[in-house]
């Protein structure tokens, strides 16, 4: 049986790893945690680079392995070896294709319109200091939650949805879209204080350093009282089937 050239091994391992980073993470995380968490393309790029370096390292630590690795490539390129017409043709094709592909990529990236800035939903900001020690003064009673529900449907549901799924009547106009409280990646990752801050100060209350408000969330301070805000928060967690992160 003929041995598979090690350069082919290297390529196969790299392709498998790349596929796993790019496509495999979503089903895996879904199977493990219930919510798919695909890797962002920047991370895929980084991991694939690390994989390439690791593979090259593996082959280059021992001289014989390295030679085995390089040999087929060198054979392919070396003019001196007695070439069959088929080999000669394929070598020519490879030698032309590599610069052509590089030129094509260059043309595409130079003439493409860049993507507009993307506005990720603002759950990654640090809670301002003055909100850290604020606590929910109200008990999680049925009555408070019910009052919160009435306030929620009157004030919040038009965007965040009567089903707390971020699909309210006006949600389609939201850019970024209103948060879906049923999604495990929103309020379930946050504690009540964070929600209190976001409701009270809205989009304009987000840190200004990044020059951009990333949210159309209104400022509810002055429209809703603190007690009303806490009741709404308790309703949001309860009816969306979530719990605050620190409770």
């Amino acid at each position, binding site marked *: 049986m003929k041995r598979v050239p090690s350069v082919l091994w290297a390529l196969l391992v790299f392709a498998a790893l790349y596929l796993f980073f790019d496509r495999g993470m979503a089903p895996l995380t879904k199977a493990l945690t219930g919510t798919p968490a695909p890797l962002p393309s920047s991370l895929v790029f980084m991991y694939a680079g690390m994989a390439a370096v690791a593979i090259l390292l593996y082959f280059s630590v021992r001289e014989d392995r390295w030679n085995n690795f390089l040999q087929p490539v060198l054979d392919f390129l070396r003019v001196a070896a007695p070439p069959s017409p088929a080999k000669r043709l394929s070598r020519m094709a490879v030698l032309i294709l590599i610069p052509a592909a590089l030129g094509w990529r260059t*043309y595409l990236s130079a003439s493409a319109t860049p993507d507009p800035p993307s506005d990720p939903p603002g759950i990654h900001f640090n809670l301002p200091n003055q909100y850290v020690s604020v606590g929910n003064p109200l008990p999680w009673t049925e009555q408070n939650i019910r009052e919160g529900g009435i306030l929620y449907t009157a004030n919040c549901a038009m965007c965040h949805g009567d089903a707390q799924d971020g699909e309210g009547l006006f949600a389609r106009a939201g850019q970024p879209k209103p948060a879906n409280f049923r999604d495990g990646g929103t309020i379930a990752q946050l504690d009540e204080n964070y929600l209190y801050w976001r409701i009270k100060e809205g989009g304009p209350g987000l840190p200004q350093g990044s020059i*951009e408000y990333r949210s159309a969330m209104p400022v509810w301070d002055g429209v809703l009282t603190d007690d009303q805000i806490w009741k709404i928060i308790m309703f949001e967690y309860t009816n969306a089937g979530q719990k605050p992160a620190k409770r």
Partner: protein
Amino acid sequence: MPLFPLFVPSVLFVLSVLFPGPSQAETLDLGRAIYMQRCFWCHGETGHGDGPSAVGMFPRPRDFVAADYKIRSTPHGHLPTDEDLLRVISRGIPGTPMPAWVKILSQEEHHALVAYLKSLSPRFAAEKPQPLPVPDGPANPEAGKEVYRKARCFLCHGEAGRGDGELTATLNFEWGIPHSARDFTRGWTFKGGHEPHDIYLRITGGLNGTPMGPYADILTDQERWDLAHYVASLDLEPSATTEDFLVTAALIEGNLPETHDGPAWQKARMLTVPLAGQIVQSPPLRWWTPSAGACNVRALHNGHDIAFLVEWDDPTGKPEPLPDSAFLQFPAQEGSKPYFLFGDSDNPVKLWHWQAGNTAEEWTATGSANTEVRPAIFQVYPSYKEGRWRVLFRRSLSGEPSFEAGKFLPVLFSVRDGANGESGNVRATSTWLYVTVERPRSFRPWLLALAYMLGAGVVELWVLAKLKS
């Protein structure tokens, strides 16, 4: 005598004794529990459609006690079937706050809820609603167009189907009866679905409690089937979404158009921008029922000037009682992205304001209460036809703000329908989108590509030469 026909029923009977399903009382209890957790907020404790948050909603939440259901597969005046109710619960009602519950409630919960809703009206115990048959033969939309004329659909829905008929305008804006006819060009707003099958059922059975009556006795089955296909064919406008939020001003040679239908506009990609009402201010100014649900936006530039064409549907172009108007909003300061409603105290916005009657002004605002008005440095070309405003804004690329290739400028669109009582903050608005202008054509990408190819070729030759030696 073969005993086989008795076999299946007897097995079923034995099974049902061994594994009884939930009893009727249990189903009703479950339905009621779901109702009190999910539905009561709008539909009310007793099901009268008068829940605590029904205030300000139009259409009003359904009154389950009156059982006057609009979306049915049954004849006019009849109750809906269980399937009709299940479908509305699971899909929700587009264009209203009624959510789709399909992902949240299980099949069993859907059925329990239907049982509970039916228990709210004694009619369900007495009547057995039967669905109308729907034709499945071929349909001729051209013949449907003739039916549209013959059956006088245009009186309410308008000649072009934009819901701007004479009758709608009169009822809505002179008599104050808020019955608006469906705009057929936006299929995603059809409450009962926009497939010919759905439309056929609406035409045949009508919509209870609205001027849309049943046509079962007025048009033949085939006429209604043709008409349903004609109406479905009017659904031309794309569904509005903010997944795509970039307005690109396409580059053209020569002068920018001053009309709304020149061939130049074919070159610009059209973006359908969803618009929302007003949710923040206290109730009298809260606005859940703006008349425009979306606007279409296109942009062109010629290296000197930029033109935006904003189009939206409005059932009446009359200047009374309040004028219609439209805004384009940009950040006033380079690189900032102010709060989307008229900016904020630290981040002013610039507004291009046009108002029917041809007022064009430039506003600088730091919040809705603080606006400074200046004469416009842009031109406006408005027109109103067949239920649609088309307003063209044109300005030099340079100025404040300036439009440059490679730069992404936040932009926001907003319109007001005066006849719907909209003025001030009571309006339909988008959130921030971005606008950019197409780069002038250049050889740069070609040159770059050539340079890279040459470089790669040189490296290859070097490697080959090295291997040879």
